[in-house]
């Protein structure tokens, strides 16, 4: 990687944005790119580092109550597999898993969010009863010029990974996100779901729901 160039570019990003914003980091590890469903040689994937000290984040402590924040949720029916001929199962409403032995384990869903709302949390519910594999959900922005052709860039905004097995494997996990705002004029938003790292393990890795929590009311 050309470090001076990246430094220059990151400097451009920071200087052209609010000074408190974090720098974006290029995702260049081929294995990591492949695990996320990108070509291993992709040069247009960037990550927004977490900043858990951001004072603007709302208090997530009263998790049991219904907050006033807006949200956009996706269940199994909202996801499409990476190839339309790949097998999947969403028979139980909301659930999604790839059948045991299948090799296609990546799916994605579009996220429909209003302009200028701040992203707060990425939530994921699911079941991870696999001793060897995890599932993950990643929120991406894919951005292009607003009114013309251009090469897309992909920005990782938030990531959630299932934890080690607890009880029967049901889990809830969330990611707090550094300050970023949605801009659907220039970017499309997607959640990429990865059900494990090898051949599919069936309902031992099951998605229940992914939710994007944002500012304002909806």
């Amino acid at each position, binding site marked *: 990687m050309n470090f001076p160039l990246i430094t220059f570019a990151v400097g451009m990003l920071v200087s052209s944005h609010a000074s408190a914003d974090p720098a974006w980091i290029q995702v260049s590890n081929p294995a990591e790119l492949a695990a996320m469903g990108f070509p291993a040689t992709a040069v247009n994937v960037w990550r927004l580092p977490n900043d858990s000290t951001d004072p603007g984040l709302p208090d997530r402590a009263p998790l049991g109550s*219904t*907050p006033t924040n807006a949200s956009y949720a996706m269940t199994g029916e909202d996801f499409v*597999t990476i190839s339309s001929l*790949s*097998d*999947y199962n969403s028979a139980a409403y909301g659930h999604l898993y790839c059948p045991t032995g299948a090799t296609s384990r990546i799916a994605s869903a579009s996220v429909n969010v209003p302009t200028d709302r701040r992203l707060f949390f990425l939530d994921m519910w699911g079941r991870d009863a696999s001793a060897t594999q995890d599932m993950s959900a990643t929120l991406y922005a894919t951005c292009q010029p607003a009114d013309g052709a251009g090469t897309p860039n992909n920005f990782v905004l938030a990531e959630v990974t299932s934890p080690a097995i607890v009880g029967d494997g049901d*889990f*809830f996990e969330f990611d707090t996100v550094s300050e970023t705002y949605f801009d659907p004029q220039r970017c499309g938003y997607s959640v990429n779901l990865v059900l494990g790292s090898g051949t599919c393990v069936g309902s031992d890795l099951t998605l229940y729901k992914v939710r994007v929590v944002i500012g304002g009311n*909806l």
Partner: protein
Amino acid sequence: MGFDDPAQLVMVRDLPFPADSDTRAPDGAGLGDEWQTRIGTAFQGRTGAFNFGGQAPSIACTSGTERFATATFDLPAGAAIKYVDMFAYDNSSSEEMLVFLLSVCQGTGGADPPVSTILANSTTSGTPGDTVVTLNLSSAPVIVDRYTCRYMVRVNMASPGGTCVGGSIFLDKVRMQYTP
């Protein structure tokens, strides 16, 4: 309904008897009602074995026994769902199309599986041709809790026989009428 796990807990809403026939009009009959529609093509098979075809907006279940397809709705918080209308073509002498409205809810912070509740259901009749099937919830509308719940409609395109009948049954669209 298309659940494949006999051990799964499924709730059924105790829906009051439908109100007397309401005035319904494309402009909302002055009630400020709005609509959200999912075309047949937007319905996704319950599993990858769902075989379908057709010209948008309509789909037919073309072959096999996997006959369930589902679409989610994205309604504003606090909206009151009053009607769900399924527009279809049913010219089959052996099969009907069933329609189910469900909510799938999970509390924030809890790791338990989602709770599925059947809010209403109905079926096409034996009368051949284009048809509309209405789920009338107007006497006790479902209030949308979008932070906790997801709302979806599932169709069964071949009941009771269970084998798809191709172009004898088409799903055109499902429309929700709600008060924001």
